[in-house]
């Protein structure tokens, strides 16, 4: 199968790599560089000993970097941010060729989607240039600071607050069900910036490094022994205004698209 149709996000008018050529290139790289998937290990995601989990995360960062260097990372991401600017059909080919091989599965969700997708859609050029190539190189793992202990499915009822202080925002509150936050780097955080308006209109989205003073990460043990979920307590965390994503009090616009990207993972737009 071959196609010249473009479904890329940057819309650049350049010849698209032929699907068959792409398949050959992907196959050669995968068979020459990646190990067969360890399905027994896959089954134990989240309930492995910490050192094994951390080694897996490290391996996946390496694989992501190898994919990046081979021109196989970020298939549908624009080239200017380190992606390949290719089509969904190319992504499907890569997925087919990856079957049976290791791949950076811990980096897919939520780092690439929804977090990187939200950045791509709402980030400033500076934000995208800073973070998207780093994500595609496996240097930044992202988590969603979305659910709250009091929130449940009422996401817009977020109680985490962000108060403006000059060029910064001061964040306080708690987030929960952040998968793997203990080994991740950045959080995409929904916070309340305005109490004087209906709840959906008083939210703003920020990004922040997870491992910093003021962010306490606590791991949650689940009934099956998994300890991959976390809860964070944020105390006077300073976030520069340049790390705000989208408009002030316009977090619900970002948030609804954020959740579309998340639902798309499960083919449920």
């Amino acid at each position, binding site marked *: 199968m071959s196609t010249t149709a473009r479904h890329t996000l940057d819309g650049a008018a350049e010849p698209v790599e032929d699907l068959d050529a792409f398949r050959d290139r992907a196959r050669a790289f995968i068979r020459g560089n990646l190990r067969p998937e360890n399905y027994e290990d896959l089954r134990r995601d989240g309930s492995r000993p910490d050192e094994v989990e951390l080694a897996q995360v490290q391996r996946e960062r390496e694989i992501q970097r190898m994919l990046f260097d081979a021109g196989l990372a970020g298939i549908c991401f624009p080239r200017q941010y380190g992606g390949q600017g290719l089509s969904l059909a190319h992504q499907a080919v890569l997925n087919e060729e990856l079957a049976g091989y290791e791949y950076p599965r811990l980096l897919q969700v939520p780092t690439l989607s929804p977090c990187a997708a939200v950045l791509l859609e709402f980030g400033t050029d500076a934000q995208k240039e800073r973070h998207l190539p780093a994500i595609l190189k496996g240097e930044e793992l992202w988590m969603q600071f979305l659910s709250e202990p009091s929130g*449940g499915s*009422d996401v817009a009822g977020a109680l985490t607050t962000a108060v403006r202080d000059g060029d910064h925002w001061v964040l306080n509150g708690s987030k*929960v*069900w952040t998968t793997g936050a203990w080994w991740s780097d950045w959080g995409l955080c929904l916070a309340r910036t305005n109490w004087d308006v209906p709840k959906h209109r008083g939210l703003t989205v920020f990004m922040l490094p997870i491992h910093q003073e003021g962010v306490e990460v606590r791991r*949650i*043990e*689940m*009934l099956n022994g998994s300890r991959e*979920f976390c809860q964070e307590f944020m105390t006077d965390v300073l976030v520069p205004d340049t790390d705000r994503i989208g408009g002030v009090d316009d977090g619900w616009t970002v948030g609804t698209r954020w959740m579309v990207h998340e639902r798309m993972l499960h083919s449920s737009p």
Partner: protein
Amino acid sequence: MLVTLTPDQELFRDTTARFLEEHVPVGEVRRLRDDPDGLDPGYWRRGAELGWTSLLVGEAHGGGSLSGAGLVDLSLVAYEFGRHAAPGPLVPVNLVAAALSEHDAHPEVRDGLIAGRATASWCGPGLAGTRPAWEPGVEIRRGAAGPALHGLAAVVEGAARAAHHLVTARDGDGVTQVLVPASAPGVAVTPLQSVDLTRRFAAVALDGVRVGTEWLVGPAGEASAAADRQARQLLALLSAESVGAMQAGFDMTVSWSFDRYSFGRPLASYQALKHRFADMLTWLEAAHAVTDAACRAVGDDTPEADELASAAKAFVGHYGGELLQDCVQLHGGMGVTFEHDLHLYLRRFTVNRMLAGTPAEHRRRVAALLDAGDTAA
């Protein structure tokens, strides 16, 4: 339980409840998760002093019931054990103490069980095939060197720390019960992993264990009725304990539904959830009722005892799962975390559900008993 309790029974139940709250609060239950015995021996001895181990034992042997219905009295303890997910081999110790008392056998072992100094395991028969019959997994082979036990009791509560095992064995055309010292050559106890935090189970394999004549509990070859009765007691007590676990889970969830606000309203205010709570309450009330009836009938050895014991095990096993799993769902993500207490009761229930026959096996057993009754009529 919903039986109308006598003042003595109410005092007894309440004393046990307060003792458990004080000595095995959830923090202690969690701590015992990593204890090989899942139990502090001092706790068990003090519980025995409250009467946990003597209710099925004859008065001449230092036992006695409160109400004249020892199994009903004991079901109150079992219920509180379920409501607190409490540690301790309550059921096997009582079954064995009762059997030793009935046959006036092994008085020193019996006294140790009653006093809580030692524990025993019940290596009884299991449900086999489609017939409504209990089948021992162990047999006595009578060779030139004398009788010997061969076989496996696959899932035995408290076997690893038991000083004795009451083993039910096929013996020619009959059934024999023997009290096997844990140290007897040929007895191999292999610990199993349990989802319950404090209940310990093991497989007890008997490989040519030489039977001493003094081991007999009751006449050789004539223990079939006794083993069946013990199995019924087991079903009734497991059901009572499971109802306690259901009650604890339900109460927690009702309380949660009033405390938890979602979209600006308490969960309890949502009509769709009210319907679910109504369903759960009907299951819970019916579970209480069928278990009460089973305990009464089994204790009195009435003709319906077999059917009611299986009906209770089937009903509680099925609806307890529906109820407790729904409680988990109504809690949201917190319901599947280890730090929340709900799973302590779900675990206790889940193990009880699988012990001594699944709901499906007991439904089949009830049907077979009804069929047999029709044929006899």
